[in-house]
């Protein structure tokens, strides 16, 4: 076990990215993730890396493409409005099968919204976000330790599947300071980089593109190949955590900061004899639909309660997994507000009565 250090979420994710071998960062300032570019600007030069403040998120994501196509580990970070601007680029990365890690420290929307923490980019993140038929793995940490650990995983997953990976935190995770043990570098064997552009010296020239015009049907063939990767992600990369589910009659489903609040309420309810459990998706895509489906099959499980910092987005995935077998309730706060413990506890008692 390494030594405990005290860090802010936004800074821990940076140090962990550097441990993961990330040496390139391109981004544009936006609250509540400004500590990320500030940390990288100071830290990357120390490890012979490159930090560059781009003229926009549009440019940042395309600079990410440039370093990625060169075969380097690269990341960007932003918050909701900036991530919207990056969507074209993320779609291109997915189409061209380029790895990259994109951190979204979500704030309230729509529009300029607020700088308060939010989870309202769930739809955008889990449905691809940009145009076209694609998905990205979406990892949702709930603590400073977890965001650090997730960064190591995120870079590996991006390389393994040659696909962008989204780390979806909210303003609370980014801003809070907690003790953590910095993760170790990964020891996973990664696929060969036989697509990287470094000059056609002693080999045939390579091209990296998303455009597929010919022969007829080329794009369909390519998209079916992408689909195979997405199916493989669904088979291999679903991550979630269970709390007190073995006897639960009410299953709360929540991720990130909402899951922390939910856990506190769950414990309080259990103290009063209510059999509440919590299922916390860590990957929002691929989603833990099978685990939820299995719970929906159990007779003792009476209902589900989805808790989110939005108006009910993951709720749709919970519905798809539960398929009408049990009642599903929802409690959410929107516009940069965090779920209130008393309100949520009230909701739990209401469901039980």
């Amino acid at each position, binding site marked *: 076990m390494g030594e405990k250090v005290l860090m802010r979420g936004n800074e821990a994710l940076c140090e962990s990215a550097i441990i993961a071998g990330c040496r390139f960062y391109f981004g544009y300032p936006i609250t509540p993730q400004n500590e990320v570019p500030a940390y990288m600007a100071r830290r990357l030069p120390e490890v012979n890396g490159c930090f*560059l403040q781009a003229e926009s998120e549009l440019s940042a994501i395309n600079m990410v493409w440039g370093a990625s196509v060169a075969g380097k580990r690269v990341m960007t970070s932003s918050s909701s409005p900036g991530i919207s601007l990056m969507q074209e680029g993320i779609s291109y990365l997915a189409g061209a099968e380029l790895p990259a890690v994109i951190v979204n420290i979500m704030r309230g929307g729509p529009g300029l919204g607020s700088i308060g923490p939010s989870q309202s980019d769930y739809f955008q993140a889990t449905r691809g976000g940009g145009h076209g038929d694609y998905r990205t793995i979406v990892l949702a940490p709930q603590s400073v330790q977890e965001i650090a650990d997730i960064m190591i995983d995120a870079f590996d997953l991006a390389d393994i599947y040659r696909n962008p990976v989204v780390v979806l935190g909210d303003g609370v995770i980014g801003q809070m300071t907690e003790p953590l043990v910095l993760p170790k570098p990964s020891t996973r064997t990664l696929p060969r980089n036989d697509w990287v552009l470094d000059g056609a010296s002693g080999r045939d020239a390579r091209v990296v593109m998303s455009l597929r015009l010919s022969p007829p049907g080329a794009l369909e063939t390519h998209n079916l190949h992408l689909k195979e990767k997405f199916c493989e992600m669904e088979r291999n990369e679903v991550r979630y955590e269970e709390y007190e589910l073995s006897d639960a009659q009410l299953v709360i489903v929540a991720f990130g900061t909402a899951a922390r609040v939910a856990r506190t309420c769950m414990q309080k309810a259990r103290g009063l004899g209510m059999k509440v459990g919590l299922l916390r998706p860590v990957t929002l895509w691929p989603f833990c639909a099978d685990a939820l489906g299995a719970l929906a099959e159990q007779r003792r499980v009476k209902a589900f309660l989805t808790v989110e910092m939005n108006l009910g987005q993951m709720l749709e995935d919970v519905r798809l997994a539960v398929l009408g077998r049990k009642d599903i309730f929802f409690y959410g706060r929107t516009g940069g507000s965090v779920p209130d413990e008393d309100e949520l506890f009230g909701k739990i008692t209401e469901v039980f009565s």
Partner: protein
Amino acid sequence: MKAVYERPRTLRDTPMHYCPGCGHSIIHKLLSQSIDELGIRERTIVVAPVGCSVLIYNYLDCDGSEAAHGRAQAVATGLKRARPECVVVSYQGDGDLAAIGTAETIHAANRGEKFSVIFVNNAIYGMTGGQMAPTTLAGQPTKTTPFGRDPKEIGPPLRMCELLSGLEAPAYIERVSVHDVKNVLRTKKAIKKALKNQIEGAGYSFVEVLSMCPTNWGMTTRQASSWIEENMIPYYPLGVYKDRGKERNAK
């Protein structure tokens, strides 16, 4: 028998999709010749735009990367910083570079990114069928300016060399043309110089090439050449707008 003309090594022996009389094919050839002469094919990476030349990577026998419409210089920035040992060329049309990608262009130039830009100004959007470009001349009819471009309504055409030469960081900015043999030779020199600058680490080099689009201008090849001579060059004067190497030598 001695060959009078040979296809450059870097230019693939494959039919191009360009219209007859299109400037892109000439510029591809000049770029290929320059790459050959400098012996850099094995370390050159060309960044393709979205526009008629989107498939340039199929014609040049060197590594190639796509870029989203307008983002070529952001891609080139990431690439060159990640692979400083490579020669990175951003090849772009006027819609790509001077409309949707204006911010990327100005900021890459202003940072003095150490790559080379070839800017093909044909005063129109070729790929999408002849709409107005930022460089469309005053009075020039296009699909979206059916009565001719009215500068009072949509502003005069953008002069990128003039605009960029106001910046401190770029090393070299020149405007050339491919409408006749004499100018084709000058274009070749300019492209080669832009690459050589990069090899020597001189910094941002920008070559604007006035180029024919007979198809969307609704002209024959010959008319298109004369149109450049008579209409484009008076508004887009040819010549060197900035050359830091020269400035240094002169001091």
